[in-house]
C-alpha cells in the first residue's frame, strides 16, 4: 500500500504551524546527527538532548497541524510524507553542521531569535499555540545559554577556535535576514493575536547576539545580501539530502511500525 507524498491544504494558520514545526524538526534532526560524534561526551549528550527538545516541540506542533487541517493526518504524515518544496523551515536551520563552531553559532543565531519568540507567543489568542510556546520557551532558554557560553569559549579560546567561530558567523550571517521575514497570510494571524510579528524581535535579537559576539571577541558581520525562500518552500540542496535520510524508512516501507 504505497501512499506517496501528501499535499496539505494551503491556509494561513496551517502554513504557520507547519513552518514552526519544520524549523524545530529540521534543526532537531541536524543536532541529532552529532549523536556519537560530539567533540566530547558531555557535548554529545547536550546536542542530543537539545535535539530531543526540538523534536518534541515539532511533534506537538505537527499534532496541532493535524487538528487545524482536520484531514485525519497525524504528526508522522507531516514529517515523513511531505516533499522538500512543502517544507517551510528557515534556510538557517537546514545548513549543514560543519564543524562544532558552525553548529554552535547556528544554534546561537536561531536560539537568540526563537527564545523571545516563544516567550511572546505565550500570549497568543490561540490556546494550543500558547501552551506549546510555554513549554518550548523553557527549553529554548537553556539552548540559548548553552550556545552563548560555547560561543564565548570558542571565540575567546585559541587562535584556531576563534578563526573557526568567526568563519561560521560570517558564513551563516546571510541566513539571519530570513528570521524577520513574514510570508503572505501571516499578517492576518498577527492582527488576530495568533502569531507574533517577527520584526518586533529584531532589536532584542541583535542585542543578544551582539552581547555574546563581543564577549567572545568576535566581529559582527556587516548586513549584506540576505538569503530567503525557505518559508516559501525554496530550499538549499541540503534539505533534500536531510529529508532523504529522515524520511527513508517511511518512504521505502509505507506505514511501517515496530
Amino acid at each position, binding site marked *: 500500500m504505497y501512499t506517496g507524498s501528501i499535499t496539505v491544504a494551503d491556509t494561513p494558520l496551517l502554513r504557520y504551524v507547519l513552518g514552526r514545526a519544520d524549523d524545530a524538526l529540521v534543526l532537531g534532526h541536524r543536532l541529532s546527527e552529532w549523536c556519537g560524534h560530539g567533540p566530547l561526551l*558531555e*557535548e554529545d*549528550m*547536550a546536542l*542530543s*538532548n*537539545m535535539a*530531543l*527538545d*526540538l*523534536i*518534541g*516541540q515539532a*511533534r*506537538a506542533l505537527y499534532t496541532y497541524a493535524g487538528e487545524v487541517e482536520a484531514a485525519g493526518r497525524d504528526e508522522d504524515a507531516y514529517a515523513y510524507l511531505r516533499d522538500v518544496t512543502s517544507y517551510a523551515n528557515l534556510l538557517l536551520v537546514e545548513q549543514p553542521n560543519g564543524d562544532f563552531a558552525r553548529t554552535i553559532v547556528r544554534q546561537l543565531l536561531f536560539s537568540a531569535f526563537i*527564545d523571545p519568540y516563544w516567550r511572546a507567543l505565550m500570549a497568543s489568542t490561540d*490556546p*494550543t499555540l*500558547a*501552551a*506549546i510556546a*510555554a*513549554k*518550548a520557551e*523553557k*527549553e529554548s*532558554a*537553556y539552548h*540559548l*545559554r*548553552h550556545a*552563548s*557560553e560555547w560561543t*564565548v569559549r570558542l571565540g575567546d579560546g585559541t587562535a584556531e577556535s576563534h578563526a573557526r567561530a568567526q568563519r561560521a558567523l560570517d558564513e551563516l550571517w546571510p541566513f539571519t535576514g530570513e528570521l524577520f521575514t513574514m510570508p503572505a497570510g501571516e499578517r492576518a494571524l498577527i492582527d488576530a493575536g495568533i502569531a507574533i510579528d517577527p520584526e518586533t524581535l529584531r532589536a532584542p535579537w541583535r542585542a*543578544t547576539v551582539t*552581547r*555574546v559576539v563581543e564577549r567572545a571577541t568576535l566581529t559582527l558581520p556587516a548586513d549584506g545580501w540576505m538569503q530567503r525562500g525557505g518559508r516559501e518552500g525554496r530550499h538549499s540542496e541540503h534539505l533534500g539530502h536531510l529529508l532523504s535520510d529522515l524520511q527513508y524508512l517511511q518512504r521505502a516501507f509505507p506505514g511501517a511500525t515496530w
Partner: protein
Amino acid sequence: MTTAPGDLTALCAEVRRVASTVVDPEIPVISIADLGILREVVVAGDHVEVRITPTYSGCPAMNMIKSELEQAFATAGLAPVQVRLVLSPAWTTDWITETGRRQLHDYGIAPPAPGGDRTALFGTTTVPCPRCGSTDTTQLAAFGSTACKALWRCATCREPFDYFKCH
C-alpha cells in the same frame, strides 16, 4: 464502572491514590504526584480521566508513564480510566512537592534552586552538593543524563552529581 454521585469523592481519591503509586521511570524514587506530572483526576458520569503533563516537550518517559498508569488502574480494578496528556498549563519545577525535593536530594540529585535565573544568558546558579552540602561546586555539563538534569561536580567531596534544572 457505575458510580452514585456520593461516591465521586471517594472514587477520585482512590484513582489519585493508585496513580500516585506510579514513579518516574528515570528517577524511580519519586512518584509522578510528587514530581508534579499528575495534574488532576476528572470524573464525568461513567468517564474517569487522569491528566498528566510532560516535563519537557521531548520527554521520552511520557509514553511509559501513560502505560504504567493504565497498568496500575487495571491491577486495581479501576479500568477503564482514560489517561490524557495535557500541555497547559506548562509544567514547572515549582510543582515538585517538598517530599519530592527531599526524595531527589536523598537519591543524590540536587533539587532545582527555587527562583533560579533560568533566562540569564550566562549561567550563575549556585547549587549545593547533595552529598556533603558544600556550595563549592561547578557545572560540568548543562545537559546531563536526561534533558531535565545537568551534571555538576563538588570540589569539597570530589563527587559528581546530577542537578535537576530549574524549569
